[in-house]
């Protein structure tokens, strides 16, 4: 490929940006000195709040609540119910359907009915068990099938439609169809949900909250307390993991802490027990996907008809955006000439499913890969050939929602490189040979692509602010609306700001995200944290620097080209000053050295109603090749080797990006293999602790795990230093593992499509194996 001239490559050598520097808190992490909210010094008299719930109820009318024994329990200071809410009893992101405390009815298993405020957390926990809550049960709607039958939805259906899928199917040489289930996923952030509210003078409330969306926490707390937004400040320095689980789900706990603080006048902390956390908070949406695909004799797709049935839970939460993103990614990397891609947002009497890294995209893409694998099995061709045959290219590059895939060549090049470095074709032969001589163990291999749209599909969220101060000693205060959950956002933004001012990194003081510094922010989500906040901070730093340059030009009677910032110094012609000296002079000359930067992503024109316009600024690409072995007697499975090549544009920090890619892949692998959420027939979640819900552990990672950054021309869009977002896309690299398992299962009955559901637990694998064996016998 010929490279277009990249302006960022011809500027002065970069000192901080693109360097594999350590996370800003790395030393504090390894020494245990990085404070999380539970580690903050508690004000004298701090109380502890524990949510209470009706432990046997799933759905029903509350007929009585007796909290006498709760109130009388040791150490209890207050017991709160919905009657104690001075403002509005709602902690939703906007649809008004998430009560902080149940109001007359139980909507799902684990709904919070009351909150105990006690001197110690242990006292509060024990007191919650003493409640007597009578609930007149209503038969719950639990499954997709229940909701379809009852016609319960949280939102209307939505679809993308192009051409005539009906005609396309008729014209296709072969039509395949199927249905499969994709499980949800628990976030399992290591730091559970937590908030600490500290009353301030004159009705103010400071809330320390572990959230990806401080602005929403601020607004929610104000709404619940019935006070103006300006009376509430939300602050978060760091989260112990988020993954989408603290985008909207932090609101309730911050609200409870603030309610308790309001009621008692004392600082109040809510820290959820792990089981409560897993039972009460939303998860990744689980789906049933019904698909039909028509293709020609070579395996080229003519038409698709896909229906995504999502279990949204009892309320809307973020289900609109999540399910839209499923549709946006139902093409994976493949061109569908005619397509109907439909979404049903089913309301079930279960916890309200929410954002989870990938935000619906992974489920959409997995369905596309399922169709490709089916075509490969039926045509007898290699799945990789079918994938490449259907890739977007120069002619066929418009997605079903009308956005062109401009960088299709990057996708082709990346997959071609991975095909080579993973030695795909010779390993394909090895796998075939292995399977020929092994009756019990079977191997599978798959190489799958990732194409992920970057931007919030809700247009107004694509904005960010930053607040930068330069002090007169040359040190820099950095603040922005993005939150740090481990992804290295703070570090990346600090590198960008240090680069701009030409200062060493220790001169840049990173500060906690705080709604009183940068207001009205969007959540740190949709992989956009760096794209938005680093740009806003860069603009703020540029503005301050620009003022200094103007000042110096006047002082030294020179042009701006004579002035250079670097190594904590400012060079003006052949004179050298420290930045501190320049800052002092500028201050004496009454130059403002603080600026609030603001950035809004350009070029986004998506209109959901008319289904037109451009939803994404750009796409991030990737590819993964996975090899697995399954045991066809027990369903046990090992991932033997994984090769990954991933596109982050020009990386702002290759070490951090590599960490995001590896971590995202492993999290996706867990979702598709060991992580199974099980509800019983009554609608009660049975997997609500790490003893029963199994995220990957160190030994689940393949010993041969080759991960590389794609060395390309950088982001064609003018993102910060031509980087690309990296938070979510790597999750979908794990589709390769699921497809490889499918490949292994399929090997026992060539020509038959396995009915493998996700997650591919030993039991799910055995179900697929059994299905093929019985079909083999009957045919």
């Amino acid at each position, binding site marked *: 490929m010929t490279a277009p001239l990249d302006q960022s490559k011809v500027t002065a050598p970069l000192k901080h940006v693109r360097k594999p520097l350590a*996370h800003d808190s790395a030393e504090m992490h390894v020494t245990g000195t990085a404070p999380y909210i539970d580690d903050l010094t508690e004000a004298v008299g701090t109380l502890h709040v524990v949510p209470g719930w009706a432990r046997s109820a799933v759905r029903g009318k509350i007929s009585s609540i007796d909290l006498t024994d709760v109130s009388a329990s040791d150490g209890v200071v207050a017991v709160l119910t919905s009657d104690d809410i001075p403002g509005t009893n709602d902690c939703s992101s906007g649809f008004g359907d998430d009560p902080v405390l149940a109001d007359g009815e139980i909507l799902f298993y684990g709904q919070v009915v009351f909150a105990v405020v006690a001197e110690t957390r242990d006292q509060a926990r024990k007191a919650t068990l003493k409640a007597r809550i009578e609930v007149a049960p209503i038969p719950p709607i639990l499954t997709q099938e229940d909701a379809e039958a009852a016609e319960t939805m949280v939102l209307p259906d939505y679809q993308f439609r192009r051409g005539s899928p009906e005609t396309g199917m008729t014209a296709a040489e072969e039509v395949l169809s199927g249905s499969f289930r994709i499980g949800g996923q628990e976030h399992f952030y290591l730091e559970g949900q937590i908030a600490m509210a500290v009353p301030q003078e004159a009705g103010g409330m400071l809330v320390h909250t572990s959230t990806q969306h401080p602005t929403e926490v601020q607004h929610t707390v104000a709404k619940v307390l019935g006070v103006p937004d300006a009376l509430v400040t939300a602050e978060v320095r760091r989260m112990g993991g988020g993954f989408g689980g603290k985008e909207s789900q932090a609101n309730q706990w911050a609200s409870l802490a603030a309610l308790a603080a309001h009621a008692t006048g004392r600082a109040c902390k809510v820290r959820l027990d792990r089981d409560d956390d897993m039972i009460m908070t939303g998860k990744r949406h689980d789906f049933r996907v019904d698909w039909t695909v028509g293709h020609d004799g070579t395996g080229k797709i003519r038409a698709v008809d896909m229906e995504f049935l999502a279990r949204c839970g009892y309320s809307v939460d973020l289900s609109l955006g999540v399910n839209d993103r499923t549709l946006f990614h139902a093409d994976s990397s493949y061109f569908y000439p005619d397509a109907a891609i439909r979404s049903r947002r089913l309301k079930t009497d279960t916890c309200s499913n929410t954002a989870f890294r990938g935000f619906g995209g992974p489920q959409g893409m997995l369905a596309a890969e399922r169709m490709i694998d089916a075509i490969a099995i039926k045509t007898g061709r290699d799945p990789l050939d079918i994938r490449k045959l259907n890739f977007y290219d120069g002619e066929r590059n418009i997605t079903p929602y009308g956005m062109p895939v401009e960088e299709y060549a990057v996708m082709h090049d990346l997959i071609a490189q991975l095909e080579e470095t993973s030695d795909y074709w010779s390993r394909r032969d090895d796998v075939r040979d292995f399977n020929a001589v092994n009756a019990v163990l079977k191997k599978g291999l798959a190489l799958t692509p990732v194409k992920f749209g970057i931007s919030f599909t809700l247009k107004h969220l694509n904005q960010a602010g930053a607040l930068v101060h330069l002090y007169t000693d040359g040190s820099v205060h950095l603040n922005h609306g993005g939150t740090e959950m481990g992804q290295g956002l703070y570090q990346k933004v600090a590198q960008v700001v240090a680069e701009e001012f030409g200062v060493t990194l220790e001169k840049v003081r990173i500060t906690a995200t705080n709604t009183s510094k940068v207001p009205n922010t969007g959540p740190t989500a949709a992989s956009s944290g760096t794209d938005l906040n680093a740009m806003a901070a860069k603009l703020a730093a540029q503005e301050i620097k620009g003022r200094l340059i103007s000042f110096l030009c006047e002082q030294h009677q020179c042009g701006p080209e004579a002035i250079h910032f670097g190594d904590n110094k400012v060079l003006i012609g052949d004179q050298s000053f420290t930045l501190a000296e320049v800052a002092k002079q500028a201050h004496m000359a009454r130059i403002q050295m603080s600026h609030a930067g603001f950035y809004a992503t350009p070029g986004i024109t998506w209109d959901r109603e008319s289904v037109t316009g451009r939803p994404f600024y750009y796409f991030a690409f990737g590819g993964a090749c996975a090899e697995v072995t399954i045991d066809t*007697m027990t369903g*046990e499975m090992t991932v033997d080797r994984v090769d990954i090549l991933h596109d982050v544009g020009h990386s702002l920090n290759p070490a951090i990006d590599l960490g995001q890619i590896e971590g995202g892949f492993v999290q996706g692998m867990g979702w598709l293999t060991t992580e199974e959420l099980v509800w019983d027939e009554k609608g009660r979640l049975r997997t609500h602790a790490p003893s029963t819900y199994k995220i990957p552990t*160190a030994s689940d990672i393949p010993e041969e795990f080759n991960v590389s950054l794609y060395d390309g021309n950088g982001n064609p869009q003018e993102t910060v230093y031509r980087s690309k977002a990296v938070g979510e896309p790597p999750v979908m690299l794990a589709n390769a593992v699921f497809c490889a398992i499918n490949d292994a299962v399929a090997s026992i009955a060539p020509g038959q499509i396995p009915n493998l559901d996700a997650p591919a637990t030993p039991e799910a694998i055995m179900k697929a194996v059994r299905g093929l064996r019985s079909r083999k016998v009957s045919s």
Partner: protein
Amino acid sequence: MRDTIRFIKGGEIVELHDVGPTETLLDYLRLRRKETGTKEGCGEGDCGACTVALGRVIDGKLTYQPVNSCIQLLGMVDGAELVTVEDLVQDKRLHPVQQTMMDLHGSQCGFCTPGFIMTLFTLYHAEGEAKSRKTVTEWLAGNLCRCTGYRPIVDAALEACFNVADDAFTWRSNETREQLKKLADSRDIFLGTSERFFSSPASLDGLAALYGQHPDATLVSGATDVGLWITKHLRDLPKTIWLGRIEGLDRVEESESGILMGATATFAATEAAMTRISPDLGELWKRIGSKQVRASGTVGGNIANGSPIGDSPPALIALGATLELQSADTDRALALEDFFIDYGKQDRLPGEFVTGLFVPRPSANQVFHCYKISKRFDQDISSVMAAFRFTIVDGRIIDARIAYGGMAGTPKRASGAEAALKGAILEDASTWAAAIDALNTDFTPLTDMRASAEYRMETARALLAKALMETDGTAAESVRVLAKREADHDRAA
């Protein structure tokens, strides 16, 4: 009688008079000492964020073991050196495991990191561990990380943990041993009142007397399950008796006939002996809990607790293990399978306690296989656990002991299958069929969050077939995915 708990922290001897019967080590660190480096992730010993190290003299060597402080009772630290993440930085210099974790980008959100650091600290001090990825992942199985995907952490472990230990803890190890020696006494410990106490008798007679007086007390061995009664079930256990200081109760004696272990011998302490009985048993031991759980958890506790999902009993039953029980005035032994009466019900009388376990070594004409099926290989509870001991003469099975876990309310022998297998010919798979079918009448498994009844039955049948295939020895390639993976790694290395 002693009415204090004593341990070493930061080189100093700490003596506590006020230790509640259910106070956890994590609460002590975070709430009383305000040392917040140690984190709570799950409160049930499954995530490892609360990992701390306990140093004790074992077989003459100062040994550091990782434990989950969230489910360790504070009183159980008696006589040990307690090391937390706060203790590792010396003279403002990071410990080698800290420095390497930082250099290799081993943290992202950082919440799990102190727990990893402490497990790595114990690996750093372990002797005789082979430098391999397998060793590292075995040590790290009890530490969950949701951010990194583990690769940089494993790399950091490989780089930092296999050199000769040379840190402040080795420099002052003689002094530490002297301090520990001073702390080791043979006095009974009793803190509290007769209504509410933490106690730790130093002898079996002391235990018998105390338990005789307080048959309502809770016996605590490793607390890897009792800890959850406290942190999760919020049970008030006003009287706790910790067995960990009873002289000789942790013995592990190997002989030609088998292994005799005391009730408080931990999984960690018995692993080598179990591996010598059978490699399968050794592998099973490594997949029970995690390093943290095996350092605290005892085989006796796993049995006495009567959990229907305990992974060790099926294997021990198939091997023909016998259990020894004692009380103030009785003494008896019984076949292990007879101990498990029903779900949640064991053959243990008031005041009676388990003292030991004898595990016979298979004879020359006996073959032993066991299998653990779980959603995740490490630190998971089995959906099906199966163990087989076949006695073979001239290619025929003349006797079979078969036990399963996860198939009934208790670990249970498959008597129908055992009977049907007598006379089966190894080379003739058609003679196995009756035994495999007999499992359908031996068991009526249940559906739960780990597996469905159908899958359990199907897998139980498959595992008997697999055991026979492996005994038969005709399978050219390995028929186990884990064994295959390891064989591939060995070939690659």
